[in-house]
């Protein structure tokens, strides 16, 4: 049974780690684009 839990934790670990990494990377790309856009808008206004 312990061995079976090992497979369960392996699957859950991979899935949630991958989703967490994707979410973090997406948020980073989102913030970078937001900053870039803000900068471009500000430079156009000035």
């Amino acid at each position, binding site marked *: 049974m312990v061995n079976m839990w090992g497979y*369960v934790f392996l699957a859950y670990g*991979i*899935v949630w780690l991958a989703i967490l990494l994707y979410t973090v990377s*997406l948020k980073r790309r989102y913030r970078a684009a937001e900053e870039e856009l803000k900068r471009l808008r500000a430079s156009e206004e000035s």
Partner: protein
Amino acid sequence: MAEILKTSRTSKGYLGGLALISVLLGLYWGLLRAPPDAYQGEVQRIMYLHIPSILTAYLSFFLVFIGSCLYLWKREKRDDLLAYSAAEIGVLLTALTIIEGSVWGKSTWGVWWTWDARLTLTAILLLIFAGYLMLRSLTGDENRSASAAAVFGIIGFLDIPLIHMSVYWWRTLHQPPSILRPDKGPWENIHPELLTALAINFVAFLLLYFYLLSLRLRLAEMREEIKARRME
């Protein structure tokens, strides 16, 4: 279509919070609350990830299909951006479905991988949409790239009915569907406690999916605006 997914920063925050709560609830239900399966034991808990992730991947590729059809018909950039954003998340979910299935397969069938019809067709689905993402990043002319990708996305989506029907058409190691089957409802196949765990995890995946899609779509829109402002 893309307009439906347009959410404000506040509603994105609420959606993200709701997704996080439902994911934690899904983990509690799937790992602690639901009893082990009578035949498979604890390893059946992998199904609380495997089924929601593939169904959400199907939904994602359905959005690619809709976005691609609308783009080829109306030539509106937002539909193309929706298809592109949905494809990226769909590829992640399909890759995770194959990995979860592989871990479950090793514990149940004794192998990490076998050239079963459903597994092979799912791997082909992953390759098609990985190709779709590569196509988007390689071609120089953006409109041509978007049109080619739209055709690719529509053809790629046609693999999903094949995946679903493969367990009926060929002798496969993969069991027939428990959820999307024409003759029986899921409540007739699955014990209510296991079905509750599955339903909670499915809702969690859906909320998380729409949260990620709203972020990815907004990112794509911002990148378009950046490009347009730089050209001016």
